[in-house]
């Protein structure tokens, strides 16, 4: 172990406290961005969309504590989101009208506490197992809670759900939380706190052992850790943050409905997290933003938007299993060596036929939907501002050609882009 070998070693990690800017810079930037967003996207629709995104960011990140960090596939994560929301709603209704001096911005704590308590209860059962058995137990828990919502109709409010009035709380600093913009800042602050806390947890001994459990649970036992305890703690903590998200959702919508803790919602959070990317801390944040936006946008233009989600999900799992964040992370070495501009044209070259293929496919979907479901409206329809008759063969032929040619060109262009990418990477390695 001479000085000579030390020369080749990349700088070792240090245990010294890094500079203030290195530690908090990113969070300060995030806070400034969050504060400024409503000035850029100021329409009412944009602000309420961002409110939803904020709650979903917390929800998706809390889910990734299980899936991405600890390797636990849960099918019942919405249980904690929903229960957190319901308990927050009940707590607010209990306090409303009384003179209790509990301001609105403290109520998400109730959601988090509920999530933690139920995380501990359900975690004690489900985390006794791992892998497939764990996934099945969480599915059972999701069904159990959904069906109790049908039985405990008083508590969960049946089909109508539980309504609340966020303006009915004691007002601090003159904040009534009536205007959506005030709710936006409430959600933004809680979102920032939750994201920072969840990030901090990944940087602790517990966080690293979670990663070890994800990679190789059997081996973890031989370095002194009880994997069941690790799973249990991860499960409870992720319940806590999901509960905070649920509490914020209750405040945001002023209504909680048992559908929000159903299996569908649990599926939605898997979708979000996976599309964003489970291997990267920022992945679920990107996923929550993109999926929430697409949900709102697609449900506006088509009735079968869920079908498109299914296709997107399958596509991501098959061709980009590391998610959107993974795709972005692939570009990082190119950015570092200033090679991205050599490859970017190929991406656009692949994107264009890809869009053509998608439009062909969605034409087939929409025409099928028009003929099969919207029978009352007749075969006359409009797609991309072009009116046509879904019964005539011509649009079908066009759609199939668009799809086939688009796919073929896309695959070719994708291969070219792949070659360009590896060439740019190889160039980097030259001295």
């Amino acid at each position, binding site marked *: 172990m001479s000085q000579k070998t030390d020369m080749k070693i990349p700088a070792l990690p240090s*245990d010294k406290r890094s500079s203030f800017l290195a530690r908090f810079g990113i969070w300060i930037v995030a806070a400034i961005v969050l504060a400024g967003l409503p000035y850029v996207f100021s329409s009412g629709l944009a602000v309420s969309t961002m409110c939803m995104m904020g709650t979903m960011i917390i929800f998706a990140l809390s889910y990734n504590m299980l899936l991405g960090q600890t390797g636990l596939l849960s099918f019942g994560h919405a249980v904690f989101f929903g229960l957190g929301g319901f308990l927050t709603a009940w707590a607010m209704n209990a306090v409303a009208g009384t003179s209790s001096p509990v301001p609105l911005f403290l109520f998400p704590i109730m959601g988090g506490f509920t999530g933690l308590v139920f995380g501990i209860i359900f975690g004690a059962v489900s985390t006794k197992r791992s892998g497939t058995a764990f996934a099945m137990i969480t599915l059972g828990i999701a069904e159990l809670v959904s069906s109790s919502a049908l039985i405990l109709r008083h508590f969960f409010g049946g089909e109508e759900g539980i309504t609340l009035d966020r303006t009915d709380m004691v007002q601090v600093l003159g904040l009534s939380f009536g205007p959506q913009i005030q709710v936006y800042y409430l959600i933004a602050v809680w979102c920032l706190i939750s994201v920072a806390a969840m990030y901090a947890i990944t940087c602790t*001994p517990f*966080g690293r052992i979670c990663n*070890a459990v994800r990679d190789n649970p059997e081996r973890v036992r031989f*370095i002194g850790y*009880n994997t069941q305890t690790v799973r249990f703690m991860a499960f409870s903590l992720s319940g806590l943050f999901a509960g905070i998200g649920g509490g914020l959702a209750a405040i945001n919508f002023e209504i909680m409905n048992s559908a929000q803790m159903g299996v569908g919602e649990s599926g939605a959070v898997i979708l979000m997290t996976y599309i964003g990317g489970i291997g990267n801390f920022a992945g679920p944040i990107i996923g929550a933003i993109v999926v929430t936006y697409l949900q709102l946008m697609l449900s506006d233009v088509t009735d079968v938007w869920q079908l498109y989600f299914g296709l997107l999900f399958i596509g991501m799992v098959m061709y980009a299993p590391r998610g959107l964040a993974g795709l972005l992370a692939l570009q990082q070495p190119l950015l570092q060596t200033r090679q991205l501009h050599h490859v970017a044209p190929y991406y656009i070259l692949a994107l264009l036929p890809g869009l053509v293929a998608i439009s062909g496919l969605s034409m087939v979907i929409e025409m099928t939907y028009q003929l099969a479901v919207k029978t009352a409206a007749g075969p006359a329809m409009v797609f991309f501002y072009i009116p046509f008759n879904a019964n005539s063969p011509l649009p079908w032929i066009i759609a199939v050609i668009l799809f086939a040619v688009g796919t073929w060109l896309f695959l070719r262009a994708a291969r070219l882009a792949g070659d360009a990418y590896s060439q740019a990477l190889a160039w980097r390695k030259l001295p």
Partner: protein
Amino acid sequence: MTQTKTPVPALRLSGLEKSFGPMKIIRGIDLDIPAGERHAVIGPNGAGKSTLFHLISGHYQPSGGSVRLHGDDITGIPPQLIARRGLSRSFQVTNLFPQLTVWENVRCATLWALGHKYSFWRNVERLADARQRTEEILREINLIERWNMPAGVLAYAEQRALEIGLAIASNANTLLLDEPMAGMSHGETEHMVELIRKVSENRTLLMIEHDMGVVFDLADRISVLVYGEVIASDTPERIKANASVQQAYLGTEVA
């Protein structure tokens, strides 16, 4: 080796048995391993060597008999409790955390013994003791240059060295190494022998190995396991000379 024999052996197996259904794999093993000894277990394929390691390290529950570590009964307790008592092991098939970096792999293995346990309130990067210990071990196993690479992309021999690193990271006093040289080239084996010699100083070592050159070079004593029974347990010279061992096992392997 200095003969500082304590009355309590580091490891004592008494009448240890393991059956899978009607199959008796381990048929009553009695073995004492004094503290500080380098002890090798040899035997033909299917003799039950790995099963024996799984019984000692808590991976399998014994069907009968007992395992004592420094006099304490550890029979059938879960692996993490055995690991916390200072018995650590490596695996025959490389068994690492493939997505974590080399640094992270070793650091994870140091954490429990340093008392950081399940802490989710301290920044792991700022634990000076874990950082120091990790660096020490990476220098010892000669992987310091690779510290920021994912374990999964290391060369095979490096992964085997990291495997040893994980085993010694907790500063365990008793080390079980399951075929550490399996699949290595001649040159790599020599490096590994040196590494094992180094890390087994001040430790009790129990290792399974097929390479007889390595075994006779490293071990203070050798036990020969055949069909779940120890047929001989002695110094390398006497094992070489032992007629029943020659007949059962060595005859074809040692020229």
